[in-house]
């Protein structure tokens, strides 16, 4: 018997496509339509249980041993409640409901909670603190944009449906001819696949984005550049780009990790937001980060409304304290300022810099995840979880902060609970221990 689920939300990337059709046959996902190849793989692999974590495990005498969920929860709670400064990390590939329990857990524990934005768009957030954020929902781009710029981003690979659903190809209310009504510009250090589609490609020298943005801003604001070239881009090209930006009727600048993780980091984004602000003196212009994990935005939202800050919150003193550079996961790890870790839906052992990982290996780790990863392999407690958006419902925020309800299309493997339920059990046990 084949059942088709429509309007399913893909819980892979920040594009959060919500038009997916999933056919389920005998409790397993048989076919996926409309999703990109990455999303399709995620859906299909959910039903391949041989690649999943299925049993809770606790490390004993150096080896992970299968235990009951109660035992795993007990051990996890003991580790976390016993720590002086536990670090609760991950959170971007799970639901807001799970994030919410995680935040209360951090508060009860007096721990530090941080998500993966610490290694992707954290700099964008720091820039927003200083410059603000001039943005819109993706439908505004679809209906109005006639100039689309991708800067340090390659959606053809990282967000495959971004161009077709939102930015270049869709027909919009004021852009009835789709891509024929729009101009695509790409700024990058190399000619990416996205750049090959562009009407204008600007090659910037690696690590010199800040200079290029400063030059653009000076030109937009009516100054004449005293030099012939900035960051490998000729004055003529800079002037042409500035003119394109000023003369469009609705422009958008999408930026990716090419801008957030190159030298200058948050300063690049600060300057880019200021550029967009300058452009609003002349026309309509907005800016938007190309967020990676499907609910990385949701974490910042939930943490902001519950604790006042968007990531990297330290509850050591019972209330929230925030200062990236001190309370960010890698800073805490590299300074050796935490003594236990809870990792939820993330794999820092693979993704973090070596000094962080070296310190991670010195402390007890509790990992909650769907699949085995290098992090679960070194953890002391491993608890399997159901996949939000496939096996359990929940909430996620798209890269433009539009909230969507994740749907459930199949049952999780037997005995496997959602992140929310696992975290609630740990929280309850921690509350008992802490009195």
């Amino acid at each position, binding site marked *: 018997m084949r059942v088709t689920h429509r309007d399913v939300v893909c819980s892979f990337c920040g594009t959060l496509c919500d038009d997916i059709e999933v056919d389920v046959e005998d409790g397993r996902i048989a076919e996926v339509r409309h999703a990109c190849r990455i999303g399709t793989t995620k859906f299909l692999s959910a039903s391949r249980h041989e690649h999943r974590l299925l049993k809770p495990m606790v490390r004993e005498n150096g080896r992970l041993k299968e235990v009951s969920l109660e035992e795993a929860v007990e051990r996890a709670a003991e580790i976390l409640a016993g720590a002086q400064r536990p670090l609760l990390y991950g959170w971007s590939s799970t639901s807001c409901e799970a994030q919410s329990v995680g935040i209360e857990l951090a508060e009860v524990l007096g721990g530090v909670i941080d998500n993966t934005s610490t290694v992707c768009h954290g700099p964008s957030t720091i820039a927003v603190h200083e410059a603000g954020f*001039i943005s819109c929902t993706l*439908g505004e781009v679809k209906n109005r944009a006639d100039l689309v710029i991708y800067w340090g981003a390659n959606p053809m690979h990282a967000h495959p449906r971004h161009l077709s659903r939102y930015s270049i190809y869709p027909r919009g209310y004021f852009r009835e001819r789709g891509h024929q009504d729009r101009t695509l510009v790409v700024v990058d250090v190399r000619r990416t696949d996205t750049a090959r589609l562009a009407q204008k490609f600007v090659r910037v020298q690696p690590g010199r984005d800040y200079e290029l943005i400063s030059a653009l801003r000076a030109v937009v604001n009516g100054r004449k550049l005293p030099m012939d070239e900035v960051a490998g881009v000729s004055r003529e090209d800079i002037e042409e780009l500035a003119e394109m930006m000023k003369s469009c009727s609705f422009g958008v600048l999408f930026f990716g990790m090419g801008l957030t993780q190159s030298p200058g980091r948050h300063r690049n984004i600060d300057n880019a937001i200021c550029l967009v602000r300058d452009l609003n003196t002349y026309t309509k212009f907005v800016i938007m980060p190309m967020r990676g994990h499907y609910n990385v935005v949701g974490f910042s939202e939930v943490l902001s409304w519950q604790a*006042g*800050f968007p990531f990297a919150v330290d509850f050591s003193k019972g*209330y929230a304290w925030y200062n990236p550079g001190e309370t960010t996961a890698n800073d805490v790890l590299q300074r050796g300022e935490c003594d236990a870790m809870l990792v939820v839906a993330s794999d820092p052992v693979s993704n973090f810099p070596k000094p962080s990982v070296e310190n991670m290996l010195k402390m007890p780790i509790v990992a909650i995840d769907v699949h085995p990863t290098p992090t679960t392999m070194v953890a002391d407690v491993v608890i399997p979880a159901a996949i939000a958006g496939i096996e359990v419902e929940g909430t996620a925020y798209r890269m433009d902060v539009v909230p969507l309800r994740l749907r459930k299309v199949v049952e999780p493997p037997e005995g496997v609970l959602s992140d929310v339920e696992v975290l609630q059990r740990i929280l309850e046990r921690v509350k008992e221990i802490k009195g």
Partner: protein
Amino acid sequence: MKLVLKNGYVYDPANGVNGEKMDIFIENGKIVEEVSGAKEIDCSGMLVMPGGVEIHSHIAGGKVNTARLMRPEDHLRNVAPRTSVTRSVCGYSTPSTFLTGYAYSKMGYTTAFTAALPPLMARHTHEELHDIPMLDKGALTVMGNNWLIMHYLSEGRIEHACAYAAWLLRATKGYAIKAVNPGGSEAWGWGRDVRSLDDRVPHFDITPREIIRGLMEINERLSLPHSVHLHPNNLGRVGNFTTTLETLELTRDVKPSRERQVLQLTHAQFHSYGGDSWRNFSSEAESIAKAVNSSDRLVLDMGQVVFGDTTTMTADGPMEYYLSSLTGLKWANKDIELETAPGVTPFVYSEKSPVSGVQWAIGLELALLVESPEKVMLTTDHPNGAPFFTYPKIVAWLMSAKSREEVLERLHRAAQKNTVLGSIDREYGWSEICWVTRTAQARSLGLESKGHLGVGADADVAVYRIDPESTDPARDYEAVERAFSATALTVKGGEVVVRDGEVVKVVSGRTLYVDAGVGEELEREVLKDVDYYFKRFYTVNLANYPVQEVYLTSPEAVKVDSGVR
């Protein structure tokens, strides 16, 4: 659960009770005639009022959270750790959701409506409302720049517009129709604005005048509990009072479907500006108050300014851009497809600034010049004029000419020269305070069981530690401010939730929304248009748009059968 609040001085002006010493009986979350065997709490020498009702405050949703995210420096102020009862809190002008609930409750408030809910972001607003404890909650759904509304109105298809508005309220779990800078926020999609009621909205065959009139007609045809809740065009612009007066004129040919106003002029202070440049900026509160006094179809809330550092936020995108370009401070903008355009920017109201001084005076002038307290509601348009924590100060100013004078003397002389506040000697009494902080709000919103203490009302009660018999508020205004800052008791749904200014019990409150029924045939037709709009112009599927009930804490639908077919 039974409770008796004994011997307090009760103010319940809706039921003609003005300071009588009496007992309030509570059973099962309601006010009752009498109970036996109940726990008694002695309230002698104290002031007893219905629980406070907030009608316009930006407490939940996308732009509120954008403000939090943008202003970590705001969150260093006002932090407190977790207790055995409460969560940890932080935030001043953009408080966390938990703090929002606790802080309102400590001031004796038991109900709050968040000022603007953009439909596409409704789920977000409800997620935050879910995390605001202590209060019954509701949200005002913004429709003043909605494409389908504008199309239906411009084509004269009023029934379709009604059915769509009813569907939108249900889909967003909203309580009322809100309009913000009608037409202007759509124009902002192109970096533009509308500056008069007769400007045409770019690409839409309609004017602000037609949108406002149309929304009022929709509202009355649907017979919704609240009236249209309007943030008019030209907010914060010098000389905007003429736009405001023209807007108020539009209510003349709208017949109310219920016993209430047809328009709430919200944060009226920001719309009562005279002069033709910031140099001769002046108050036109008298003109606005006159219009309100001469009409039975209008009410207003103050939008009072209190000096200090705050954050402005509104679905009036062009206005936030304009303000941030005056101050040069950071600015967030968040246009929402087919619907609206919120913005956020910090602002500092300074006692030394001539403009801030005049703004401060205008809010108070409006409250004092509108004769009937039934038409006035105390708000700061939190946090636009000031954070809501400042309400006790405003209560004191309303009750004491002396306290106003003391402030006025400190201000830039423009505040005296360009306003009439100094010449107003009216001082509010306790009943009037009760009207402007709860009873008028409940009436305006059509909340029959709130804002009063009659039998059958919700057992939401505030007990303030101040003796109205022996206190002269005109002189002891500091005592008034203290008393209103922290209740002796706040009772929510029959339970004591705050005692001596401390939260002693956390409750979650209900979420109220309006479910207005229209003819099935009509609804089907409208849904076809809605479906087309989603397929063509939105970026989410229609099936993923309506807010599921799971997001609401104790949902309570107010059902209305409109008769629209």
